């Protein structure tokens, strides 16, 4: 029961963050890049719910627009990881042998690299920007999904319904599509929610060091960076984006943990 409550809370937080981020597509209280020097560093008020920053920009508008940017980067990053990782995992899992060895050792190699460091190198080479950040983060999602898919595919390969399909001479692609992928879906959803949280953190980290979302586009990481020198005088400038990052990551982690418990048959049977 407690686990369900945690998952519900995680789901609720994630849903609210998602809704607000999508809202930013069509509406923000102020234009998040609109500068209003006369009202700089205004405290929270009815006009500016979370106050304004040193350039007079509305912090709430920046937060929700920044959330939208984080979300977009995370979607691209996790999407790229799934689109590239799942087929590779299927290939390795179904083929086995040398192909499997090569792909999985490649994945090991990527896991051995410090992810953020490599992301820094990639964005430094490709030029900083949201898309480069998304791709840099996405590259590290590829082995995650490849490995997960490969393990599950191998396990499913021993199951009777897959063997039956093979005996019937079904094409490998058809077997993957009809018999394996549907059984992987739950696993992928759980992993995706966790990778999503990590991607949001990584995007904030890259933007914080100036390699992610570029000014003037708002971003949580850059808001934190800009707030650094104001930490003693106007700490709310750091607190709000910090809270936003925390809430997003916490919500997604709770949701992911809950989903895993719900969908993992072994854990479920233990509890029942």
């Amino acid at each position, binding site marked *: 029961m407690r686990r369900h409550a945690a998952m519900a809370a995680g789901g609720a937080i994630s849903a609210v963050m998602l809704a607000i981020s999508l809202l930013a597509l069509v509406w923000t209280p102020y234009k998040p*890049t*609109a*500068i209003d*020097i*006369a009202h*700089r560093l205004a405290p929270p008020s009815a006009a500016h719910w979370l106050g304004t920053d*040193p*350039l*007079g920009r509305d912090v709430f508008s920046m937060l929700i627009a920044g959330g939208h940017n984080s979300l977009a980067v995370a979607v691209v990053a996790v999407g790229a990881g799934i689109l590239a990782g799942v087929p590779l995992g299927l290939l390795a899992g179904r083929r086995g042998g040398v192909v499997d060895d090569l792909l999985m050792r490649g994945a090991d190699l990527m896991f051995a690299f410090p992810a953020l460091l490599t992301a820094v190198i990639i964005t430094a080479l490709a030029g*900083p920007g949201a898309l480069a950040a998304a791709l840099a983060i996405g590259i590290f999602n590829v082995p995650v999904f490849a490995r997960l898919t490969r393990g599950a595919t191998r396990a499913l390969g021993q199951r009777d319904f897959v063997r039956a399909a093979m005996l019937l001479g079904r094409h490998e692609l058809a077997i993957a599509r009809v018999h394996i992928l549907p059984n992987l879906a739950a696993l992928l959803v759980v992993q995706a929610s966790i990778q999503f*949280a990590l991607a949001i953190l990584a995007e904030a980290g890259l933007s914080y060091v*100036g390699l992610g979302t*570029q*000014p*003037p586009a708002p971003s949580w990481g850059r808001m934190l960076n800009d707030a*650094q*020198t*104001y*930490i*003693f*005088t106007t700490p709310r400038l750091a607190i709000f984006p910090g809270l936003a990052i*925390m809430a997003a*990551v*916490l919500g997604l*982690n709770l949701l992911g*943990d809950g989903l895993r418990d719900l969908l993992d048959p072994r854990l479920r049977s233990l509890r029942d």
Partner: protein
Amino acid sequence: MTGWARLGLGIAGIVFACVGAASAPAQAKDTLTLGMVLEPPGLDPTAGAAAAIREIVYANVFEGLTRIDGEGHVGPGLAASWTMSPDGKTYRFALRPQVTFHDGTPFDCGIVKFSLDRARAPDSTNAQKEIFEPIAAIDCPAPEVAVITLKRPDADFLYGLGWGDAVMVAPQSAAQNQTNPVGTGPFRFTRWVKGDHVELARFPGYWGQAARLSMVTFKFIADPAAAASALLAGDIDAFSNFPAPEILPQLRADSRFSVVVGATEGKTLLALNDARKPFDDIRVRRALAYAIDRHALVTATMSGAARIIGSHYTPNDPGFIDLAGTYPYDPARAKALLAEAGVAPGTRFTLALPPPPYARRGGEVIAAMLQEVGLSVDLVPMEWATWLDQVFKRSDFDMTIIAHTEPRDLAIYAREHYYFNYHNAAFQSLFARYRETTEPAAGIDLLQQMQRQLATDEPNVFLYVLPKIGVWNAHLHGLWVNDPIPANDVTGVYWGN
């Protein structure tokens, strides 16, 4: 679970960092650690334009024939006195006796001839060759007398000789000055830990008043937040050019520190590539000038502590006239001028931003202001090396934000090749006449005409004079309040009680 653990670790880390930064006693001492934002590319002021070079070695390690003090006045340096011939073409310098370089090389007229000939040689890498261009000959009638003959009178000659670019260097050591500077100053170079700091130690054989500090460390901290922490923690005694104006209220309230806001020579510009369309059109340049609310810019980026300018000249300079009102903030007029010049709304430009906060923060503000008049601006943050190569050297840019820290450098607008590509025969002739005038009143008049010409042509959008925000330990005395030239002259610095 892992999320919580990570969060916990993060909080613990922050708390730890704060506690660790708390204590450092301020006792009577004779060493100084001075913070600087930028690390210089080398340490030879005669072979590089970077202000950071001068901010370490000027007056401390190297000295010139004349010397510029904290108020911008020219006084005697290695030349104790001089006389000028009535036609303004011959200077006779009486050199100080018993001066030696840090390696024991004696200083005499031979050194003067070597240094100036080296600086004006065709293959010289000196960043300010105009200083030496008027020199026709250097003669040594006696070891302690140097006679410099000019091709024509030069109003700024003695002033130019006081610049870091004109310091005296010895033939044996000149080639190594980039990494191991050897001068005649009261401090000698001891160590450079790349990426971290440069150390100087008192030179016992100094010819003049010995320095009161035994050792000076110049520590490089580019990040404004880290600079603030280092000051608060006592790791750094002084920041003569503090990069985070937004922290000043807090520092002012802290009795451990003196906060002294002075003026630099840093003319901060929105520099435009006048050779590139549409910036070759004066209406476009003026439109940009009208579009920028410079008071708001200064409030946002400098906490209001900077003076607006309307030309490439500062109030510290002789003959300054206030042209700040030439293009008052008027977005409607800017839009009209842009339309007149055929610049369609939504036209995109890039704005190159070097690392200093004035550029990075100012860039966001200016981009927003230009957006208000219908222009789209792509901000391109750059490291210094990239900026120097792409913008300064190859002139491959639309717009950039940069502070020119050299004093009285109207000469750059008369140059044939310079990165912003301003060419105006009228200005060039004004400048040529100014250089040759020996009559002070006429010189002032020409200086004012040049300022007006620049304000009229607006080759760059003139923004404000970079303030010199000095923050140092309240017991420290003798640091410069203003920055008439880029320098951290610590020869007179001492600790009081």
